[in-house]
Structure formats: C-alpha cells, structure tokens
C-alpha cells in the first residue's frame, strides 16, 4: 500500500521534468453521475473478500460488463457527480485499487466512499471531469491543485485535497497512520 502511494507521489513530483512520461491513461465510465458502490462491485460479489483480485474482475459489471478488462495498472478512473454513493462497502474502493487504478477523478464523491478510499490509500480528486475522454493521458499534481489532460493540452483546477486526507495518503492509509502515531495525528 505504502509503495503504491509513493509511486504516485514520485510521478507527480517528476511531472515538471518530463511531463509526457508521467501521465496515466484515463478510463471514462459510460454512466457519468451517481455511480453507486453496488455498481462498482455488486452485492453478489461483496462477500468474496478473501480474494480481492476476484473482486477487481467484476468492477462495474452491472453497468458496463466490458469495463474491467480494459483497465491496466496506473489508469485513472474518470466519473461524474456523486461517485460512490449508496452502500458503505469498502470492497468498492478496494476493488478499484486492486484493479490497478492509481486515482479516481469525479465532479463530486459520496461521503462514505470518500473516507473509505483515502483510508485504504486510494487518491480521489474532485474536479470538472467534462474534459476527459477515454484514453486521454492525465497527470495529477495535488500540491499545485492541477489535473493536466496532456492529450488535450488542458490544465484543470482541482478542489484542494484536505490536509487530513493528504496525511492519510502520505502515511499509506489510515491503518498505517494509526500504527505510526498510535492514534490520529492531523496537526
């Protein structure tokens, strides 16, 4: 988990040096708004927690059965409003992370999903996602609060990632944060 986050951060840091090389292809969902956690991973599979790879194979199955097969490591998921609404299942961000997504971009996120994702070290970015097509090369810089769509030559403002969430990402998730500090340490 720790390694994964560091990898993203390193890529972001290197962005200014070699922009092109540091980008990730976007994978845009067909259904844009209100993609709930049942759609991320159906209740039919959510009990299969012993095998996260199996979960990852079934992401978005009920709304786009061909989607999971198109995802490769490092891809960035692009969605619309209220992504991750509904059930509290942590299997949803977990399945996205195991499927290889390095981040999710959406216009807004539902509350429980938002916490769950950062808790397991999956970065979420709120920004206007209207300007992304499937396969666009994307680079994220959370310090500058910019998402660059390199393919389209656009630089888009993102909502700043809250300090707490950055802290959790830096530590590699809330479990690692808790172990490291013996509790919450946000100051």
């Amino acid at each position, binding site marked *: 988990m720790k390694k994964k986050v560091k990898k993203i951060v390193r890529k972001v840091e290197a962005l200014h040096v070699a922009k092109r090389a540091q980008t990730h292809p976007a994978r845009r969902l067909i259904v844009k708004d*209100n993609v709930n956690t049942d759609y991320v991973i159906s*209740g039919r599979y959510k009990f299969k927690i012993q095998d996260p790879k199996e979960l990852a194979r079934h992401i978005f199955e009920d709304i786009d059965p061909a989607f999971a097969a198109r995802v490769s490591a490092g891809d960035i998921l692009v969605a619309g*409003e209220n992504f991750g609404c509904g*059930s509290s*299942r942590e299997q949803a961000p977990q399945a996205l992370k195991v499927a290889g997504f390095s981040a999710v971009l959406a216009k*807004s996120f539902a509350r*429980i999903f938002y916490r769950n994702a950062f*808790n397991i070290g999956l970065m979420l970015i709120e920004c206007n996602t209207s300007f992304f097509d499937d396969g666009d090369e994307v680079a994220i810089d959370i310090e500058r609060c910019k998402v660059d769509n390199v393919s389209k030559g656009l630089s888009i403002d993102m909502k700043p990632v809250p300090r707490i969430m950055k802290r959790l990402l830096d530590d590699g998730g*809330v479990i690692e944060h808790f172990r490291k500090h013996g509790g*919450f340490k946000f100051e």
Partner: protein
Amino acid sequence: MGKTIAEKMLSAHAGKDVRAGDIAVCDVDFCFGQDGTSGIIIDSFNKLGVNKPFDPAKFFMIIDHSAPSPNIGVSAIHKKMREFAKAFDVGLYDIGCGVCHQLIPQNGHVTCGDLVLGADSHTCTYGAINVFSTGVGSTDLAITLASGKNWFKVPETIKVTVRGKLPPGVSSKDVILNIIKDIGSNGATYKAVEFYGQTIDGMSVDSRLTMSNMAVEMGAKAGIMAADRKTLKWVSKTSKRQPRPVAADPGARYCAHREYSVDRLSPQIAKPHAVDNVSSVDGIGQVRIDQAFLGTCTNGRLEDMEVAARILKGRNVHPEVKFIVAPASREIFLQAAKKGFIDIFAKSGCAVVAPGCGPCVGTHNGVLADGEVAISTANRNFKGRMGNPNSFIYLASPATVAASALAGHIADPREYKKRLR
C-alpha cells in the same frame, strides 16, 4: 450564535466547541458491523497492532445481510465473525435475530444524545430517536473498535419541515420518497438533515425511523429528529441508559430550509434505477409485477406488517406474483404472529422468510430473473440490487406493496383506505 443538533452532539463528544466545517476527534458511544462489512473490520482490526477492542461492550456484530448463509464463502465470513466475537467477548446477533437497524434501537444499544458509527450506510436510521449516527466503511469502524474514537467533519445542516396531516393510505415512506425526489440523490451530501413539523410530531417512532433511514439516499450524513415525549417513552422502554436529548438552539444556522405539505400527498413510487426517480402512483401507468417484498430496515417493522396484513386479510396474492415477507427482527416476527399477521400472510400466499435483510441485497431469498419486475419496501432500487442487473425494482410503502401484490401490477393503496383507518 446558536448551534444545530449535529454541532451540539459532536461538540459534546469532542469535549470542545465545534461548528460546521470543523474537524473533531470524538468519543463514540456505540459501533457495529454486519456480515457484509465485518470480515474487513476484523482484518483491519488485526492489522492495527492492538491487543483487544477499546470497549467490548460498545461493539456488536450482526449477521443479517446474507442470513442464513446461502453459500460456502458467506459461511466462512459468518464463522469468522462468531470466532472473533468469542475471542474478544463482543456481542453478536446471529442468523434469525433480524436486521441491524432494527436490533440496535429495539434492544437499547443506543439512546438520545449518543454518537454512533456503523459499518453500514443506513446507520443514519437512529437519527429518528435523536442519535447522531452515521455509516462508515470497515476500516474506519476498526479504528473505532480499537480506540473508541474517530474523526468527524462537522456537517452543515438542512432544515426540513413537514406540515399537514397524512391522508389515509399515505405513510412516512411516501413523505421521504417525496423529499428525496425534491432534494435529489446527492442534494444533502456531506450534510446533516434535521426533520421538523407537525407531520413528524404526529408520526409513530416506527414511522420516523423509516424517514431517517432514507436520509442517506440523498447523500446525508445524518437524518436527525428532536426528542419529544414519544421518543423518550420509546427509549425508556428499550434502553436502561439515561437519555441525553439534544435540541437545536434558537438561532442555529442552517445551510438550507425546505418545507413540504402532505395534506394532498399521494402514494409515491421510486422507479428503476434511482431512488430519486420518483413519481406519484397516479401517474405510474400499468406496471405489471412479478415479485413483491415487504421488509428491510426501512419498512420491516410491526406497523408495516400491520398495514400489509390489513390489506391482505381474506384475500389471495395475485397468482403471478411472489410475495416475500421478512420481519425486521425476531421480536417483530413474534409480535406479528401474536397479532395474527403471520397467519394472514401465510394464508394469502406469502412466503415469510427469516428475519434479516432478505432479498434487498440480492444475495439470496428471492433473486429476480431476467426481465422480472419487483415492488419493494426497501430503500434502494439500483440496477442489480436484488441480484440481477436485468431486472427492475420499484420502491414504495408497505400499503402500496401489499395492494400491488393483490392486483398483479402497481396499485393505489387508497383503494383500501377503509381498511387502513
């Protein structure tokens, strides 16, 4: 300046004065997980490097989502939960006890003024009895299990006022569906909702629980009601703990005000595949149904059983409809049996299944076939929710579901208004 209920409750549990937008680390009074989330709670807890739960008495696990187990994988998770409960001396409600959101208030685990976390999105249900309760994921819950605490962003609050007298055949489910239609499925995201007004005052606690239960369907973190005499009487029967009712201050700051009048409200139906896709039963047209379902944390309580029983009494469910009934708890099952409702259900041709979440989550107990249509008293009609993405789910009140089960298509329960008085 005055404070909202959320601000006051979170301040009390943070031990400092906090306002909307502030981050607070709070002491949690009670937390729990169900069988869809407890497996990961246990895994996360084991990674935290603590020897035992912070306070075993403040944590419960409930086997309700897929109970009794339909397959080997679920059985393994249930076994893991039982072993964890035994090892750490924490409480567990096993198969047949009922749905978490019925058991927790009914058995007195929570009372007015409490701060509660549940690894289930419908944890907001207890807002109806003046509890700040909200859903979190499994790892968040594990942190609370280990430390007794978690961090909260104090939410802004939308004040909802509901006025008027409900017409016969129209219930709290119709009121909340109508509110969700207006506010939308993300209209209250990150926010708390406070419910007020004479309609709420006139409702039973059971009816109020239905409304708070669905607050999350508009994205809300909590759906809170003030405690009145009904609430205090209710919690004094369920819980031995001293209630600490919290009311909003005069001059509390709300981010929005919404007002509704229910005098002429008709039965409401949420159509596939979104909870805010709501229309009146009057405009629904001829919708043939294959399955009806009465139950869940939204509408599986005694008064819901009663409404359906009144409509079904002496009649037969339509021959092409499967009607599944799952009382929300064993206690409700027993009371419904005592009052003769179970007898009515069975004689009408219903399949009464074990208390629990039933077919709502789509793992067992009534998975739909391709192209089938269900009408359900549940709170979600997402594509695939009842186990098949090629099926269609309509959400409605217990009265509408019972009337539809008799008719074989979505029907107006006001037809039976003499029976519902």
